[in-house]
């Protein structure tokens, strides 16, 4: 008899690892990679956005830049529909900041063994540039990019990797300068300099994933360090495109940084290619294995209900076999449309496993009608459909149409929980992490209760 977590994005993995840390027996069922595997490297707890609907970068009244904690406080006060309200019902930003800091420490520890880590923090905003030169006003990010805080750099060097598709450092340098100006920050020197990789590595540049894999080879670290060293600028920051390995990113950057004598970091990714999500996804799966969580590659098809609780999860394994897992507690962390937690079928939007009610960020039900009904014609308009998801109560139990827990032992975490549009209200991975941890805690309590009953 175990806890079953459905969904293997950050929310599900955080729930499963938290359960495992508390000694519970956990099985995680995962159909495949979800939105977590598509990220660019930021792990936003309360990221600012230039969008009118996003969190502001400056205090709207005083004009001062807001700290991450202030943005989180602003969000708790002004967005009652955001599911952070379920995690922090008393609306105390300090408590929320403490919880986020704890969660960040935990995530960092899960990632470190895989050559990845978490950086940034809730005390100061980090300004992270992506490969196009656009700035992200962020708090947490994977350590490889968090070290590239542009705000604290006196001068910046963008490394040019000739032949790398989708990356034009000169264009990026221009946009970056414009971004600093748009944010009202002082200009600083931004230089583009070629990264003199040995020919064997340079030949791989036309396929970014191949270059990244080639840099993972044991003898690549000194070669990279050697190529980076000449770019060094005092008090400066060297930014590389995100191709620094798939499994050994931090050691590679550390070696380069030591050799160059200044900070060396990666740019955030951007389409068409960003390894950040894939790296995160890989590292999370590895952490599951280390913690002894049993992972079932497959899709949960239905939940078996007895009385007021779910007792079993029926699933189809990736190899085609069927299986029924007994469960004392279930955590739904199935994400939204790109995860698979929300689908449209029978010409209406629905939550995929229990047909739980789906609400947008204004409290309107979305699951009675086809998706297109709630779409606005203008891309610039808010799109309620993409803020939609299920609701949870203060103990993260998934809520039914009557506003009460749908089942006594079904919890939900991550993006499946609605009330915000992650493209605009930048809290996606942060909420996945915080709610996943909390759902893990609640689930371990339920498992313990059931065991003692």
């Amino acid at each position, binding site marked *: 008899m175990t806890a079953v977590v459905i969904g293997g994005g950050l929310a599900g993995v955080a729930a499963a690892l938290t359960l495992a840390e508390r000694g519970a027996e956990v099985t995680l069922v995962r159909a495949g990679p979800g*939105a977590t595997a*598509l990220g*660019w490297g930021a792990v936003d707890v309360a990221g600012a*956005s*230039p*969008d*009118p609907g996003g969190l502001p*970068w400056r205090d709207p009244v005083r004009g001062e830049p807001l700290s991450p904690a202030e943005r989180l406080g602003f969000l708790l006060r002004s967005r009652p529909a955001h599911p952070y309200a379920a995690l922090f019902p008393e609306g105390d930003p300090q408590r929320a900041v403490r919880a986020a800091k704890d969660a960040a420490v935990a995530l960092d520890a899960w990632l470190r063994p895989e050559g990845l880590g978490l950086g940034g923090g809730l005390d100061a905003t980090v300004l992270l540039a*992506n490969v*196009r*030169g*656009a*700035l*992200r006003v962020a708090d947490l990010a994977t350590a490889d990019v968090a070290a590239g805080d542009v705000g604290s750099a006196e001068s910046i060097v963008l490394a040019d990797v000739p*032949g790398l*598709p*989708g990356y*034009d450092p000169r*264009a990026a340098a*221009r*946009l970056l300068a*414009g*971004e600093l*100006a*748009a*944010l009202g920050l002082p200009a600083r020197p931004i230089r583009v300099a070629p990264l003199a990789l040995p020919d064997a590595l340079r030949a791989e540049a*036309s396929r970014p994933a191949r270059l990244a894999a080639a840099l993972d080879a044991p003898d690549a670290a000194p070669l990279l360090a050697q190529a980076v060293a000449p770019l060094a600028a005092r008090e400066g920051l060297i930014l590389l495109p995100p191709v620094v390995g798939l499994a050994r990113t931090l050691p590679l950057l550390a070696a380069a940084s030591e050799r160059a004598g200044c900070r060396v970091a990666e740019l955030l990714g*951007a*389409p*068409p290619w960003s390894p950040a999500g894939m790296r995160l996804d890989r590292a999370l799966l590895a952490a599951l294995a280390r913690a002894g969580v049993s992972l079932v590659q497959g899709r949960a098809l239905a939940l078996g209900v007895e009385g007021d609780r779910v007792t079993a999860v029926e699933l189809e394994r990736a190899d085609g076999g069927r299986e029924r897992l007994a469960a004392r507690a279930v955590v739904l962390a199935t994400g*939204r*449309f*790109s995860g698979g937690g*929300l*689908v*449209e*079928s029978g010409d209406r939007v629905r939550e995929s496993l229990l047909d739980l009610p789906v609400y947008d960020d204004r409290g309107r039900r979305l699951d009675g009608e*086809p*998706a*297109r009904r709630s*779409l*606005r*014609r*203008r*891309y*610039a*308009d808010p*799109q309620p459909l*993409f803020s939609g998801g299920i609701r949870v109560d203060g103990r993260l139990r998934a809520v039914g149409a009557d506003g009460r827990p749908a089942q006594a032992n079904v919890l939900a975490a991550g993006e499946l929980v609605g009330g915000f*549009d*992650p*493209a*605009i209200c*930048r809290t996606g991975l942060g909420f996945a992490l915080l709610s996943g941890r909390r759902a893990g805690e609640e689930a371990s309590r339920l498992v313990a209760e059931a065991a003692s009953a």
Partner: protein
Amino acid sequence: MNATRSFQVLVIGGGINGAGVARDLALRGVRVALVEKKDFGSGTTWASSGMIHGGLRYLQQDPEVTYHSCLDSGAIQRIAPQLVFRIPFLMPVFPEDPIGPELMEIGLEMYDRYQPLKNGRPHTRLSREQALRLEPALSPRIDCAFTLDEWGVDASRLVALNALDAAERGAEVHTHCEVLSLLREGGSGRVRGARVRDFVRGDELDLEAEVTLNATGPWAPALAALAGVELRLRPGKGIHLVFERRVSDVAIYARGVDGRDMFTFPHEQNSMAGTTDDDFYGDLDRVDVVEDEVRYVLQAMERSIPGIRRHRVIHSIAGVRPTLWGFGAYEDELSRDYEVLDHAARDGVSGFYSLVGGKLAAYRLMAEDASDRLCAELGVDAPCRTATAPLPGGASTPDVAEIARRFGVGWPAAVRLVFRHGDRAERVLAAVPAPRTLCDCEPLLDAELAHVARREGVRTLTDCALRVRLGVGGCQGAACAGAAGEVLARELGWDAERTAAEVAEFAAERWRAVAPILTGPQLPAMEIHRAVHRGSRPWSAPPPGATSRP
């Protein structure tokens, strides 16, 4: 207000007809200007099925249209051999069909007589088993099926090639330039050209001409009204649904609940399904697909291809036919014929003509007819050469394998490039040092983008959806629009802000094509689209929805 320029002919409207006339006149040595308010082919022509066929459908009411279309189809195949492709059709016959195999056979035999005009093969009759073996997606309920040979073309590319050839032969072509008013002698006399607004540059210019041609398709009545002329059309809206992949290898006929014929056909790596034909009274600049149309098309398709709903519909295309006015007939029964109107004779407004109606398949003949009339008025005595002079790239067909090898690009990318650029494919590939594909949806090369920006007059990123099929696949520009914006920025000298604004406008434009038909399987893609285009927007870009272009 600035520059005034003078021409013999001003052609208004850069659809297939306007571009066709501009090319025809340029080939005859006439000084011609062509203005298009958006981009070439962005009106009705982009919305067409791209069939250069005779239209089996018109055989009964309009055999003239069938004859001319077949004849002109043959000519288009000669002048743009790279851009045409054979579309074998399957026509399933169901037990409940009012027209049984025998009657059908008679109609097809009639059509067979026109086939040689367009290098088509005669029809064949297939047994149920043969048809199902050929196309397993077909409904097993069929009695039998017929094959029918037709030709397709990339319609917006055909417009661009006509405009390009016109330009290369001395015509002046302006995209994103809308005619706001007509210049008149003494205020209300002879039409003397037009005042146009350039929406990219944000200024106006006067284009003076001895004769002005209104070739604005369904907008023709509005343009004629600028001269105080009443022109009546019976505009008919038509839609297509575009599937992420090919639903079938051949085109398949389907029948709507009302008995109308429709079809699904492969186009590049997509399939398209359509079309509808409904009287349209709305705003021509906002033709949206509505739910009823989607259901109507899918219902029809499902009868022929039962599994059709499993396929992912990625976007939709809607347009309005500039059908000639007719009263008391159903939309489908209206004539597909065309007219060249001399407004001097008709309305007492001299120096002003309109070209309306017709079909893509007969565009060249229509353009020839219109050009003959304009030349007569100008006293120009040069013969039409459009039936024999190849369009750009059409003079010879290069070796795909050789090109793929020499430039280190994949076979599919090379095939695509030769299809679109013919014997200019190598020139296109030389536009950048090491050509690369920009998207996984379709092997679009950065070299092609750079080339069309440099040599073919592309002015905005949004143009590229029509011009090079940027972002019209499954990702709808999530993966490729940003990188494409940078290619154009380099070529056209955009600063970072302009580039960001162009990318934002492109994303918004794709959304307009997707939102009305967005259903289950495409929802994840559009969620990602938003994460990309709303979730990583620069701070220095103008706020969403703030673009100045109409």
